């Protein structure tokens, strides 16, 4: 048999075996046997010397072509095996991610914390300082400094928790007005969120412990018109929509004039519904121009400065935002309730 025939036959038998091979190992064996360094083709290369000189070039080409054909067939089949193996591995790696992830899920911040944080951000962006005040207060800061004379009903035993030594638990966040004025002076923009206490029986809509946010702005020229603008802007931020507000007279000793600020009912748009008791308006916050006596108590000259102040019910806002219908849940420590605010 001529060398050419031998090569031709080798090519055919090798490609045939490659096509029939059933594993990567088998392919490797064929590779070693045929195109390996000590394989058949290498042996055929040695026989080249005996080939006639004029045929040598053609024979060399043939040898290369056979080698290339076998290698290409090996390559192709190897890739196919690798692809199949990868596919099989990936298939074996099927998993179920619908089972719960190991580890701990995040907890929730208290709904009042979340509302308070949101409001603090809103106010800070409007240039307000966020201040704190003590929960145990003096009579002076809680009452006298706020123009609440000793005979005012707010001082009655039924409203205030009195402590030994003439101290009391603050009944509102308003004492921080005076503390803030003393600390920062005028002009001033501040809020003071915090826990307050009223001596009231607890029921679904009353708590003896709840949260307020006091706000105050003191400057040279502060008018009702400015307060209105500010409140509208603020409420737009809080409710994330335009709100219609109205002021009506309200009596609070630390402001003059004093107002109740109502917003047009967000539920019915003012048409009247159960939430607004069919009036179209919802009472939202008390506010007013700071009484000159309060400015004086804060060490600020009312002839030179004036301001407005307001009080937001944080607890109430949280209840409105989350649709909470029983105020007692907020202090219950019941995780079935609190975990809903994740």
């Amino acid at each position, binding site marked *: 048999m001529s060398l050419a025939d031998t090569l031709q036959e080798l090519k055919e038998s090798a490609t045939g075996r490659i096509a029939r091979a059933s594993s990567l190992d088998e392919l490797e064996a064929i590779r070693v046997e045929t195109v390996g360094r000590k394989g058949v083709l290498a042996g055929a290369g040695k026989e080249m010397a005996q080939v006639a000189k004029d045929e040598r070039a053609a024979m060399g080409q043939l040898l290369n072509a056979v080698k290339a054909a076998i290698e290409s067939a090996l390559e192709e089949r190897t890739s196919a095996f690798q692809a199949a193996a990868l596919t099989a591995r990936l298939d074996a790696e099927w998993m179920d991610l619908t089972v719960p992830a190991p580890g701990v899920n995040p*907890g929730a911040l208290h709904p009042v914390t979340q509302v308070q944080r949101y409001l603090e951000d809103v106010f800070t962006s409007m240039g307000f*300082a966020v201040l704190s005040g003590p929960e145990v207060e003096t009579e002076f800061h809680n009452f006298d400094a706020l123009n609440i004379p000793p005979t005012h009903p707010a001082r009655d035993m039924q409203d205030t928790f009195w402590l030994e030594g003439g*101290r009391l638990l603050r009944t509102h966040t308003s004492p921080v007005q005076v503390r803030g004025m003393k600390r920062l002076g005028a002009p001033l923009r501040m809020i003071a969120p915090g826990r307050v206490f009223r001596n009231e029986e607890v029921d679904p809509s009353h708590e003896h412990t709840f949260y307020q946010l006091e706000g105050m702005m003191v400057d040279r020229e502060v008018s009702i018109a400015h307060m209105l603008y500010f409140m509208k802007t603020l409420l737009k931020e809080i409710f994330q929509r335009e709100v219609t507000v*109205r002021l009506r007279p309200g*009596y609070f000793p630390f402001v003059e004039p004093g107002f109740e600020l109502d917003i047009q009912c967000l539920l019915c748009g003012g048409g009247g519904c159960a939430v607004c008791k069919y009036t179209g308006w919802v009472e939202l916050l008390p506010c007013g121009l700071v009484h000159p006596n309060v400015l004086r108590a804060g060490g600020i000259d009312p002839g030179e400065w004036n301001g407005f102040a307001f009080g937001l019910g944080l607890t109430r806002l949280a209840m409105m935002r989350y649709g909470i219908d029983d105020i007692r849940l907020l202090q219950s420590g019941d995780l079935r309730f609190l975990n809903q605010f994740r």
Partner: protein
Amino acid sequence: MKFSANWIAELAPGLAVKPHELGALITTKTAECEGTEAYAPFLDHVRLARVLDVRPVEGSKNVHATIDAGPLGRKQVVCGAPNCRAGILTAWVMPGAELKGGRKIGTAQVSGLESEGMLAAGDEIGVNREHDGILEFSEGAPGDPLPGIAPDHIIEIDNKSLTHRPDLWGHLGMAREVAAITGVALRDPVPEVEWAGEPPLRVEIEDYELCPRYSALVFENVTIGPSPLWLQYRLESIGLNPISNIVDVTNLVMAELAQPTHAFDADLLKGSTIYVRRARPGERVQALNEEEYALDGQALVISDEGGAEAIAGVIGGRPTGIHSGTRRVVLESANFQAASIRKTSSRLKLRTDASMRFEKAQDPHNTVRALARCWELFQMVSPGIRLAGGLVDNAAPVKPPPVIRLDLAWLNRKIGRAVDRQEVERILRSLAFGVEPEGAEALAVTAPSWRATKDISIAEDLVEEIGRMIGYASIPPRPPLAPSEPPPDSPEREYQYELRRRASAQGFTEVYNYSFLSEELAQRFGFPPEEHIQVLNPIASDQGLMRISLVPRIVRNIEDNARHMDSFRLFEMGNEIHKRAGATDDGLPAEIPHLVAALYAKDGGGEAGLFELKRLAGILAPGVEVSPAGAARCFEHPRRAWTLKSHGETVGRVFELHPSHCEHGRGAILDLDVAALFRLRPAPVKYKPLRRFPVSEFDLSVVAGSRVEAGVVRSLLLRAGVPTLLGVEFVGQYEGAPLAADEKSLSFRVTLGAADHTLSADEITAGREQAIAAVQAAGYQLRM
């Protein structure tokens, strides 16, 4: 406070506003209206009718009556009232009426007979509270509407919004507001009376501060009986109970003029002098409400020669009250100091219609006006009544109301829009303020006497009067001019938020607990009650102390939630309140913010939870170190309590609850002093250059007693004085053969290195030997 719309309309003639709109107007301009409700609308279907004849109904107490309803014809009605008899003029409810509670009146079969409508008792149509018989009228014609008894609307005003307005506790005051708002005239119901004759009584006032004025009249030839039905109806409609003619008039005048008065039976008073004085300590008054009150020396009483007969401004006495046989009456109309009345009324826990009005600081000018109005009405309700003598009036001189200078430019700046000078004057005059020009730019304003007692004293008060009357809706919102500078920050607050955020990210849910706890709860946790600040007037006895630790309430949270969940995590950020003074300059108690986290698992040995809390502590306070607590507190597991330190300072504690405080499962608690953590918080990170030379590591295994803490051995290694030491890390521990039963092996990886070169073999060996020597010096063996 309830207001009758009809009554207001009588005092503000020409008023053309519907009752519901009136309520809304009052809300936006004066005081908060809580609601407006129709009162007795069915009276449109009630007419006078005369009973013509009455026939008994067999087998029934009822009678069958023929009535004459004038132009409406004769009707047959069945009636069960004992006073249903021929000749009386009564109230006939026509078929088609719908009474209180939706009771429909038609033509019905009663006792087998047809009844066209019905004859009404007082309580059935809202005239009074009588149900013993049908109403009897003395005047009017059959077929007419009931005289002076018409459908009304009741406007309910929130009492709180009247706190500063003594005048609005009567219809005249509210009518004045309504007249000013709507621009109609006001009609004063008080007649002009010329008082003549010697005062028949002497009045001695001990302290004019407490009683600035005491006026009185004495009446004789009085007949006591029921009031006319129109008067009873008026009282009933605003929630006052009709009693008798004289008492009803005093109540009517109180509801009209806001001035409380009191009628004594003159023949039951001893002597002819009335003393207004402080009570003698322990002095008792039997009051009209059938209670007896023991007074202290601060209460003010009205006394005769025999002793206290009434608690001034609060309630009259029963022994000298009006009764069916009263023939002579002393009518008191006085003015009392608001604070004194409020104190007495709250001390006695007795709030009356009178005390509610006096505690708002009533107008001393009003006493004699109320007497004049009562005198006029007495003559209508008790024919033949006579004045005995003249007016009794003992008064301290009244200070004239201050003149307030109102700068008009200032007013406009306060309001935020210009208000015309004429408009300002018109508004103030409509509210009965005195207004005089003071130059071109200002007004001299005098408040009416009923606003000057407490309500109006400075120019700011006038801003409110103008503002509410022009309407706050007429003020365009305007942005304030304010410097746009960043506000001062509050790092402590931000720090606390960061802790909350981290705790919740680690799976802990935030709870809020009360600041109160009970003595019993404090004791259960071994906190001595006397270390707590006491609440003098707690809501409930279990809330009498201020918390000095958040832990007891957190343990309560664990108990509560363990009923529903097998495992959970929670935390609270709140203040401990201690008796010792805090940092403020006014000596207030120290309020120390703490973060207390708790972890509960029904199953397991508790270790995992404690490690989780340790991890949390490290996340909240990086670098915090755990060391054994020594003595555990009574609610702590005796072998599972540790203190947490930062920079050598104690900042908290972590422990497992003692089984006596957590019966089922395991509860672990982390308690951090947030004030201390804030003080010791890490400084801003300063970058360290990356290491350029390789480090060397080797492991050491140390044999120690089974209760020796790895941390103890680790700190030996750290403090061994190895100059090239970079760190020591715990790798693991082993117990078992070949170690003794009470031994274990602790393995550490020690890292050595230098910033400026690669360590030589000698340096590494020297370091290793120094470390081993330190361990051995402390009595531990190395495991090879």
